[in-house]
């Protein structure tokens, strides 16, 4: 799509109920099987949002969820697009239900909510835009993984620290172009 002629109205789901259902299936498969790479297609977001990150936001965000845009993601093109397609309010990191951006822009991650002992679900889901994402790198074990899985992570140490907080902690979607993998707090990570 030509950037000069595109408006905030362009690039959303063609058939929202069905497109969102298919997208959620991919997101759920990713979260249920940490390290498993899934594909998300069907939307054309404004730069610098990746297709996968944008579809996660379209599928999961609405006026009930605060979204934090980190770094270059926090631009008028992205704000306008998300405002029209999701209606989600933009908030600071401490209030965010979802945060999206490159890893360095999301740091420090202790700004985000990790839930409370009674309600560990009240934590932020981070959507981390990755320069590359493949099934190589740190070794993952835990719920959803048959024996072991491998995944390229932005920062092994930070994610190990996060999993130590279990059952509190952050949950991650890692996105790159149209691909997504997830790393919930329940996963144990070892560096190779």
């Amino acid at each position, binding site marked *: 799509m030509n950037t000069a002629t595109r408006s905030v109205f362009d690039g959303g789901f063609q058939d929202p109920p069905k497109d*969102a259902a298919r997208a959620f299936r991919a997101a*759920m498969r990713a979260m*249920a099987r940490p390290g498993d790479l899934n594909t998300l297609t069907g939307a054309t977001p404004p730069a610098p949002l990746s297709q996968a990150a944008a579809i996660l936001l379209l599928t999961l965000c609405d006026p009930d969820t605060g979204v934090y845009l980190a770094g270059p993601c926090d631009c008028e093109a992205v704000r306008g697009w998300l405002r029209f397609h999701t209606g989600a309010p933009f908030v600071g990191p401490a209030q965010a239900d979802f945060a999206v951006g490159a890893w360095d822009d999301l740091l420090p991650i202790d700004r985000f909510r990790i839930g409370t002992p009674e309600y560990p679900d009240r934590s932020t889901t981070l959507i981390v835009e990755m320069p590359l994402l493949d099934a190589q790198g740190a070794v993952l074990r835990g719920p959803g993984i048959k024996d072991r899985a491998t995944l390229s992570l932005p920062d092994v140490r930070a994610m190990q620290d996060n999993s130590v907080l279990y059952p509190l902690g952050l949950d991650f979607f890692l996105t790159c172009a149209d691909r997504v993998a997830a790393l919930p707090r329940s996963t144990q990570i070892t560096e190779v």
Partner: protein
Amino acid sequence: MSAYNFAYLDEQTKRMIRRAILKGLAIPGYQVPFASREMPMPYGWGTGGVQVSAATLTPEDTLKVIDQGADDTTNAVSLRKFFERTAGVPTTEETTKATVIQTRHRIPEVELGEDQILVYQVPIPEPLRFLEPRETETRKMHSLEEYGLMHVKLYEDISQHGAIATSYAYPVKVAGRYVMDPSPIPKFDNPKMEMAAIQLFGAGREQRIYAVPPYTQVVSLDFDDYPFEPTKADHPCDLCGAEDSYLDEVIMDDAGTRMFVCSDADYCRSRRDTGHTVTAIGGTV
């Protein structure tokens, strides 16, 4: 069909349920509160499972609904029709052909695969509820991993009956952290919960969703000297002869005649279709 949004629920409700499902998968066994909606069926008829299924179904899915293992009981037939009309998805009675299986109180006998999703209907999601009625207290007990009371309950079973008499809704510990109610499945089904499929649990009236990802450790609580035992009626199926399936006891007359048949109707039928029969079908006195 066109009078409804895909899969009945409005999109904002589905997003809210989907967010709860993702958090549930990230914290296996933890009960995520959700804003359960009024559904066009009464509480107790699977409103939680229906909402989870509605938020999970895609147009490409094939749905199976079972009630105590059977595809042809009122609850199963109604829910299957509901999704045929509101989601337009094909339905099946064959476990192996289904991608989403909504179940009331059974796990199918056939091992489920990675591409399948099992949705449980849950009446009381809180395993500690009959031991501690206050939600504020049970929530604190879960947060402190304080499950001594549950072991006291199992111990009292032993002191009264000589064995753990709990036979359904048998408590399990998921991924070494949360004690979870597996819904009122017979304890025979508990060992099957470490499976390749995604397991989602929906409690409509109680407004809770929880989940068990594939290959997650699910341990039935027990004692070293009274280990967990999955039990079933000590009898083969009187229709297909299966010795490994969970059985229903059917009363045949008023003289005490009864027969045992597979509770999983599809399992029993598929066995009979492939030549497994019992020579004389009849009851046992």
